[in-house]
């Protein structure tokens, strides 16, 4: 097991990025041991969630330019923070975290979800000359598993076969050049998380155990113990480790049937709800990095190209209870202060503006001059100028608001803009990883933040 001390001593030796000798990197004391990324896939509209603007109700003939938010704002547990109707549970826990309203997505030209997701998850925009590792893979490499029987990087809820964008998704749900050792352990369907750690459907536990015993005897009979080649020993060890993991008490963490009915209900009867509940169990069992996604499937969930108002209502319903419950459960168990929860999305949305106000890109949705049908009412365009994200636990300030956007369209960031490299530097900072941590590939240094230059926003941390 990789301990934090081993890692930090490595970091202090200034050779973290083997060839990349940036001697200014100082060890950082970690604020969190675990990170949970709750991914709002498809571009969550900030004005319909955590950055509500003037509410304009629907009426036939409505001028779309008048529409900034299609929901009313509501009060939260924090005096100066209002969020959008439909997020009442999250509103109640807003005093346990920090709300960032000034995230500026990458300036990548024509908007493509998978490309922005790649950019968010790796810090680099494709194409790249080498395969960039996922945030979770870097954390896995830097810190190792927190518990030896729990994979360091667990990726919950994303099917990798979603039609046309499947390949684009696969290209960043990986450890990239770091190699499969640091790659994600996939739980595609959180409603059946046990499938990932139990024997294949047609093999009973007894048979599975017997198969392993017979396999060991068979190898022994073949004199495998004497073969001695290092590669071959490594293969045997890997098979042994897999069995240990699958049969360890830790594997029970994947079994949601062990939860009380009430706790399942508290998280809501949805895939995402189950994913959040699973994240709580995995955190308790010693996971290092968990991503739970609402799942990216083109035109579904947060990917609202039409009928945005209604779909935002439904999707908010899906995320509100589980996110709030996860915060409360971890708090109740005394784990929140050492667990960083991040709620994030690839970019924001707007009714009118596609891309950035200063650099508009090709519209992908036609907006009528007057809205006639409720289906035309909502945030149907991709907005990369401003987006919201939430941080809970992991040493971030409680009830804190960071960043401000204008109240009138185009609702630009007017204070404290934060871009991916500084956001990542902040998240890595919480985990005790310097922004210029990296690895060597083809004799070149490659860093967790672009060129190793991310600057953590340290004012987000503290009491």
């Amino acid at each position: 097991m990789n301990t934090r001390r081993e890692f930090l001593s490595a970091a202090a030796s200034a050779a973290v990025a083997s060839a990349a000798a940036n001697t200014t990197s100082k060890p950082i004391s970690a604020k969190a041991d675990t990170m949970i990324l709750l991914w709002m896939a498809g571009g969550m509209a900030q004005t319909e969630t955590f950055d509500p603007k003037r509410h304009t109700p629907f009426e036939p003939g409505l001028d779309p330019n008048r529409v900034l938010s299609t929901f009313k704002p509501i009060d939260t547990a924090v005096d100066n923070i209002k969020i959008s109707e439909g997020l009442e549970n999250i509103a109640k826990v807003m005093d346990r975290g920090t709300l960032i309203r000034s995230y500026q997505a990458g300036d990548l030209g024509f908007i493509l979800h998978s490309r922005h997701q790649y950019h968010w998850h790796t810090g680099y925009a494709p194409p790249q000359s080498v395969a960039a590792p996922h945030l979770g893979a870097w954390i896995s490499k830097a810190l190792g598993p927190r518990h030896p029987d729990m994979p360091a990087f667990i990726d919950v809820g994303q099917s990798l076969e979603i039609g046309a964008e499947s390949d684009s998704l696969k290209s960043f749900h990986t450890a990239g050049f770091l190699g499969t050792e640091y790659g994600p352990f996939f739980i595609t369907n959180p409603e059946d998380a046990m499938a990932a750690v139990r024997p294949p459907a047609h093999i009973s536990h007894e048979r599975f155990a017997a198969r392993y015993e017979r396999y060991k005897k068979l190898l022994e009979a073949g004199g495998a113990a004497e073969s001695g080649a290092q590669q071959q020993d490594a293969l045997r060890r890997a098979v042994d480790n897999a069995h240990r993991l699958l049969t360890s008490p830790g594997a029970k963490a994947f079994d949601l049937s062990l939860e009380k009915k009430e706790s399942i209900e508290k998280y809501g009867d949805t895939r995402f709800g189950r994913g959040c509940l699973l994240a709580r169990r995995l955190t308790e069992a010693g996971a290092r990095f968990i991503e739970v996604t609402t799942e990216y499937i083109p035109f579904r969930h947060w990917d609202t190209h039409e009928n945005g108002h209604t779909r935002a209502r439904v999707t908010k319903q899906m995320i509100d209870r589980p996110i709030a419950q996860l915060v409360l459960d971890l708090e109740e168990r005394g784990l929140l202060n050492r667990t960083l929860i991040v709620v994030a999305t690839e970019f924001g949305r707007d009714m009118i503006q596609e891309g950035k106000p200063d650099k508009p890109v090709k519209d992908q949705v036609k907006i009528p001059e007057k809205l006639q049908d409720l289906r035309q009412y909502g945030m149907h365009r991709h907005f990369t100028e401003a987006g919201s994200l939430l941080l809970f636990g992991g040493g971030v300030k409680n009830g804190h608001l960071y960043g401000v956007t204008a109240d009138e369209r185009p609702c630009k960031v007017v204070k404290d803009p934060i871009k991916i490299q500084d956001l990542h530097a902040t998240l890595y900072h919480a985990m005790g990883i310097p922004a210029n941590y990296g690895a060597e590939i083809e004799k070149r240094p490659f860093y967790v933040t672009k060129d190793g230059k991310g600057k953590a926003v340290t004012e987000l941390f503290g009491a």
Partner: protein
Amino acid sequence: MTRCFASFVLFSTALLAADDNDTPTWRRMELRAPALPESSATHPVDRLLGAYFRSKQVTAAGSVTDAQFARRAYLDLWGLLPTPEQLAAFSADANPRKREALVDILLADGPRYADHWISFWNDHLRNDEGVVYHGERKSITPWLRPALEANLAYDKFLQALLNPASKSDPDGFLIGVNWRGDINASQTPEMQAAQNTAQVFMGINLKCNSCHDSFISRWKLKDAYGLATYFSAKPLEIHRCDAPTGQAAEAKFLYPELGGVAADAPLEVKRAETAKLFTKAENGRMPRVLVNRMWKMFFGRGITEPVDDMDARPWSPELLDWLAADFAANGYDLRKLMRRIMTSDAYAMQAWRDAESKPYVFRGPVPRRLSGEQFTDAIASITGEWRRLDPRQPGPATYARDWQIKSTALGRALGRPIRDQVITERVTAPTTLQALELVNGSTLATLLHRGAQRMLGELKPAPAPLFDSGQVTPGTKELIAADVDVAGRKKLWLVVQDVDSYDPARTEALWTETNLPGGRERIASGASSTNVLDVSGLDRFRAKVGLAESSKASDVNPRVRFFVFGEEPDPKQYLAVKGAPPVAVPPVLRNADALIDRVYRHALSRTPSAAERRAARAFGVTKPDGLEDLLWAVAMSPEFQYI
């Protein structure tokens, strides 16, 4: 934009210009075959290695057995295990030169050779099956597979890739992997082409100096742009770390002494010139790079490492140059090169199992892991359970080698790369995550489960559909008519198969205008559904199938296939299959010892020892579950997974 790597420590650089007496042989453009040392050995590789071993005071390891040799050769040339029948024939052959003869037989089979080596080239040319991005990317498989099958000479092969002048040429390679939207200046298609051609064909890494002068090599920013200009219709402006410099790039080949044209020459002229520069006889580096990659494929480690840095010192400059010169003299014939390597005693040496010494000394091949493709195809050939390609149109599936199918979780775990970049080296080390996929992943489990049943003759043949609609999507213009003879049948199975709808839960598939009585004229089904109908007394079943209007929304994006069956269908195989599998299906066996023998001979190219036979019997192999578990255990053994 700030400078990249501002805090980076400068590395010392070895500067070199055109060949001179101080330039070590492997860095020269000139290529000359070194004289072969006096030796009792006849094979040139062995004569060179004999002298090498003497100088290193290494006693060469002995040769592998005939059976081990056959296993190596089949896997290296066809990517398949020798079958017990092939192995028996080879063992029985009294020809003293039968190893050489086997290599010739294997090399002569173009299709099987191509079905294995295409994976190597797909990695290096980052070509993949069915992989599409939003943005441009173009498969070169329709050119690549025939080029390999026909053993297109490597210089011609490069010329087609570098100068895709005719319609059948593989322009996908130069198009690159692009994503819609703005692209960093160092990743434009021209810069990708420069980086990839330099890396793959010349063993030169231009990635650093695509942004700025390299800190780790002699290559400059202007060198990357110099080569990129050859792939660009317009003159290029040099960008430093994504910022324009105002400086126009010259067309400059990596080794200008080989020639070149002006930057403003037409694209066709520039590409034609590039094709010449990379492949002309004076370019000695091109064959060195290729033979080094091949040596690595057959021995697990290059003569020069890393294989993308051909300025690094080879462990035998003489061997490298002799093979490269021989390759060039043989008209850049890839199969002749393989033959040359595989007929040496060196190829047949027992694997060196200890850790690598520093500096490296060649003591024999390194154990090589089966690739994901070899592993999956091996399981398929042992069990006869091959994967299939379903056509979009109505009609039967075809058997497929693993490379033909989009990568699975199993394949990716075993090192099949995501080919966003050129891949010159796969990561093959065993890891826990990979073992998890092998231990409880569904791809392998399903393959073994069905395979064991098949070997025991207990897998019922899947019934063929009476009707197959082909894939139906919102773009399918009209309802598709089914009209099936059902005379004498009691029951019909109406099946809808989901083929990756975005939202299967909201997909509604319709059987309409049926000739069924009693309110069954219209049957609405989900994306994955089976309706069993009583059709006693009916002569024909008629219906029209299609998608409900309500499910044609963009966020549902339904994609389904309709089938009618007269017998209970096999949900794993709705489609019939045409053609022969890549390897003859093994005979059905029911005797425990015969089964165990067969598994060992096929998987490991040997018979089991008495102790192994006892241990194998304990699985209860005459039952499908027991045989499945034995197959799994053998597949997990290092002996199976390493060559």
